[in-house]
């Protein structure tokens, strides 16, 4: 059996798996947006049926969202398993094979967490389930990137302009903020308390909302809707406000990163363009956040906010992977060149053949 680091079909399959995962995150968002997570009380069965045999006549109301989520999750689980086995058999890079194994165990853990959230009535598991989903999506997306021909070609390309290490760390900080925002968002959703702050840009009519018991009582009693969410608590208002402040910080950090990269590398460099696109994405995401509040958390808007959030994380993470991986390669190559020159041998030309381990 021949192993290779350049397998077009494997790459296509990885891209498909990543895309399916993004769709799955969207369906998961629909489940929480429709408060339908508990519409199927049992797991792994569906109302006692093998879930693949559950009669479509029962796919009504909240069951539709939850059951579709389970079926689609099974598909992603299957795709991930095939991807891992495929990598194991055909991939020449050992770390890439190991990533496949990590992805497999993550998707299994993720499925079990989803089931336990339902059977154990634990919102906290839901928060973890939603956050692990983001991590898994980044993982399979990175695998899709790393199995591409572009990845192979780009790391030998010394023409690719890369930002300084300092800016690399700024990017890491911005991604950490995006991830924190996603974790905060997951916590807000999975407390099933609806909008802890129903207005924007003000918060309960103020710059900073009151959280004393009397105000909370009025907030809860004046909240009229078809759905009865869990009562808002002071903690949930703090979470919501932290999410707003986090959004501002993320925008500023990503904006500062994009501006700095542009100054350092020029407007035409690939990383400059990517970081500008990323900033645009984050700006759209922040706007969707505001729209989620203004639409009173309409299910479609809120779900779009989840999906775009996941996309923001993936895009940031992929840019980060490229920057660090290639910078690392270049450093190794430069060090090799420097060493060769120092020794005065004639291996300079060899050093320019960047190590092909990546």
């Amino acid at each position, binding site marked *: 059996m021949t192993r290779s680091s350049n397998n077009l079909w494997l790459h296509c399959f990885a891209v498909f798996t990543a895309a399916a995962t993004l769709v799955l995150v969207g369906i998961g968002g629909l489940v929480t947006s*429709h*408060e*339908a*997570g*508990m*519409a*199927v*009380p049992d797991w792994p069965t569906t*109302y006692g049926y093998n879930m693949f045999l559950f009669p479509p006549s*029962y796919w*009504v*109301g*909240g*069951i539709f969202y*939850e059951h579709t989520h389970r079926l689609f999750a099974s598909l992603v689980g299957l795709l991930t398993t095939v991807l891992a086995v495929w990598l194991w058999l055909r991939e020449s890079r050992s770390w890439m094979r190991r990533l496949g194994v990590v992805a497999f165990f993550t998707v299994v853990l993720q499925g079990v967490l989803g089931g336990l959230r339902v059977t154990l*009535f634990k919102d906290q598991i839901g928060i973890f389930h939603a956050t692990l989903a983001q991590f898994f999506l980044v993982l399979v997306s990175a695998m899709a990137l790393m199995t591409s021909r572009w990845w192979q070609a780009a790391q030998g390309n010394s023409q690719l302009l890369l930002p300084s290490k300092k800016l690399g760390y700024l990017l890491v900080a911005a991604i950490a903020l995006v991830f924190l925002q996603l974790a905060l968002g997951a916590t807000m959703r999975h407390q099933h308390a609806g909008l802890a702050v129903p207005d924007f840009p003000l918060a*309960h*009519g103020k710059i900073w909302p*009151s959280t004393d018991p009397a*105000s909370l*009582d*009025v*907030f809860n*009693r*004046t909240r*009229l*809707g*078809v*759905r*009865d969410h869990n009562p808002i608590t002071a903690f949930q208002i703090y979470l919501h406000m932290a999410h707003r402040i986090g959004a501002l910080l993320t925008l500023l950090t990503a904006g500062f990163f994009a501006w700095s990269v542009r100054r350092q590398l020029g407007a035409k460099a690939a990383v400059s363009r990517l970081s500008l696109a990323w900033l645009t994405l984050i700006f759209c995401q922040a706007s969707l956040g505001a729209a989620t509040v203004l639409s009173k958390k309409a299910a479609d808007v809120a779900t779009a906010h989840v999906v775009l959030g996941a996309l923001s994380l993936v895009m940031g993470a992929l840019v980060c992977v490229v920057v660090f991986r290639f910078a690392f390669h270049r450093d190794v190559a430069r060090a090799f060149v420097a060493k060769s020159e120092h020794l005065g041998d004639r291996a300079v030309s060899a050093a320019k053949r960047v190590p092909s381990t990546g």
Partner: protein
Amino acid sequence: MKMTTQLLTAALLAGSLQLASAADITGKITLKGTPSPEIPLPLDASCAKERIDKPTTRLYVVDAGGGLADTFIYIKEGLAGKKFPPSTEPVVLDQKGCEYVPYVFGLQAGQKLIVKNSDKVPHNVHPTPQVAGNPESNKMQIPGGPPFDYSFSNPEVFLRFTCNIHGWMFAYGGVVDHPFFAVSGKDGTFKIANVPPGKYVIEAYHRKAGKMTKEVTVVDKGQTADFTLSVPAPPK
């Protein structure tokens, strides 16, 4: 033997005395202010078939005279140290026309609650208690399926029931550890029956109009306690 007979007679006498002096607390809940209009329920196709009307939320059910329904009225203080065995008569909660009926009900801790499904669609019966010791559970009830029995051992006002298949379905139980409670009817009136003599604090609690307490002293004849609750002003 003679001793036992004497004791029995004494007990019977005491019992009948108490019965004789027990009285009802009656009253009316009135709503002040005008609530915002109720919101139509977003019934799906299968639920729409169960209804000929267009159901709405039941946040404020008020009659022309301002009588406020669905208020839970119960003795909050004054029964400390007294124990009352739960009634053997179960409370029934029905799922009818894709709504829980009644919307608000009272239940004594330990009393049996029967939940049934009168619809041709499935529901998942999902009580979501917040008080430790009252178990959360979630079971599907198919059309024509057998009713489910519930019992909650700790007081909790309000203990919510929901159905996640139909995100608009809710019911609220006022669970207390004695039998002295009532839910106001369509005209806002209520009656708490057979209250033993004593000094009590009774509370009227409406989910949206809030709560209010009153002191009531029961001697041997009926007592009245009227409450006026208000639509809360929007937060400033």
